[in-house]
């Protein structure tokens, strides 16, 4: 039996209110997603300041374009896509991706074993230490889940470049993890 009743979910109600320009609803939407999105931003941009700037741009865009959200996916996914795009735009604006050969960002962290258990913050730091190109491709492929063709389109690089950047990123992270004797399963 098909759905006879379609009760609006709380998310749908929220979206409807936001479309009307209800500032309370907007605030609620922001509170719901902002922390997650800031985490996403930090993966790409490394500094809290930059990530927050992109975060505010993202939500401004979200509220301006809320009318265009068709509801064919979860709201969080839509917001996240905007966040990723804004992060990439920010990087493009700040520098030319892949034209600069960036030295790996060294920190005392990666070459010493951690005294405590690894947590998410540490992983973020590991990613932040990657050179720009490795970092971006790794984020898009491993975490966001885009394929190489899509990454090539987004960043304006070839698929092969994307693949090579990814494998270099993995090697790099592997070394860092090995230092801390992280055991992972190899298939």
């Amino acid at each position, binding site marked *: 039996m098909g759905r006879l009743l379609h009760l609006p979910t709380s998310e749908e109600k929220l979206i409807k209110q936001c479309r*009307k*320009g*209800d*500032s309370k609803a*907007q*605030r609620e939407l*922001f509170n719901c997603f*902002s*922390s*997650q999105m*800031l*985490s996403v931003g*930090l*993966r790409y941009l490394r500094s*809290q300041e930059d*990530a*927050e700037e992109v*975060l*505010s741009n993202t*939500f*401004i865009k979200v*509220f*301006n374009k809320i009318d265009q959200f068709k509801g064919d996916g979860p709201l969080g996914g839509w917001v996240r896509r905007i966040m990723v795009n804004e992060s990439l735009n920010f990087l493009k604006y700040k520098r030319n991706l892949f034209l600069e050969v960036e030295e790996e960002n060294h920190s005392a962290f990666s070459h010493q074993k951690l005294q405590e258990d690894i*947590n*998410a913050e540490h*992983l*973020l730091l590991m*990613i932040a230490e990657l050179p720009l190109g490795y970092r971006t491709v*790794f984020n898009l*492929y*491993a*975490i966001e*889940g885009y*394929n190489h063709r899509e990454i090539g389109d987004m960043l304006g690089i070839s698929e092969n470049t994307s693949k090579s950047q990814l494998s270099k990123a*993995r090697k790099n*992270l*592997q070394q860092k*993890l090995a230092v801390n004797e*992280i055991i*992972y*399963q*190899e*298939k």
Partner: protein
Amino acid sequence: MSDNNPIDSYFKNSLEGHEVKASPEVWERVAAETESKSKRGVAWVFMRAAVVVLMVSVGTWYTAEYPITEIGVVVNPTTTVVDGKPNNATKGKEPTNKAATPADPSKASKQESEEETKRKKVIPIMKQRQRSAPIYVSQEFVPEVDESQLYSDEFELSTATLDPKEVSVYDQAKPGKVEDMNKPVTESAFYPDGAEVEEEADQDIKTKLYAYANSQFDNIKNGRKVELPRTGKPQLQINLNRIFNN
């Protein structure tokens, strides 16, 4: 895709749902930008329309109350218009034409004397525009005017050209006769401290100006069209009639 690789999965799973608290400035920035958007509601459209209607109606009322008249024409709603001689076509509109000024004071003085019949000595007041302050002539420099003579047919104006050097302020200090009205007064006579205002302009141009003004005064007095000053240079003849009538 990324699930195949253990490193990918490890990072992905560990960072799933990871949150970092944003500082309050972020929301402030967002709220500021989207504040303007909320005014897009239907109610606000009506508000803005109402404001526009209000402004238009106020503007209409205002211009009805205070109509904008031609610049340079003396419009004083409270003054009664006195009929002068039909030939005397000046309206008080030619402040730039110096030779015409003797007619102005006479007309103004006629109005004035209507209001104050007891006054014998007339002080002409030259009003150029509605807004500027009137320029007063000191009593000393004004020749006494016999009003009956003003509109008589025998009143003739001379067309003598004026040499600015000849006429000095002090010549006009004496109570003058009607003939003295013939001489177009210098600009300096209309200022209390006339001597100081004398320019050191090029005398050549000054004489030319006076000559021109003199020649045109006759035209004005008789209601004829003012001729444009002629220059020595060849001019382009444009047949305007042909253009307008085609």
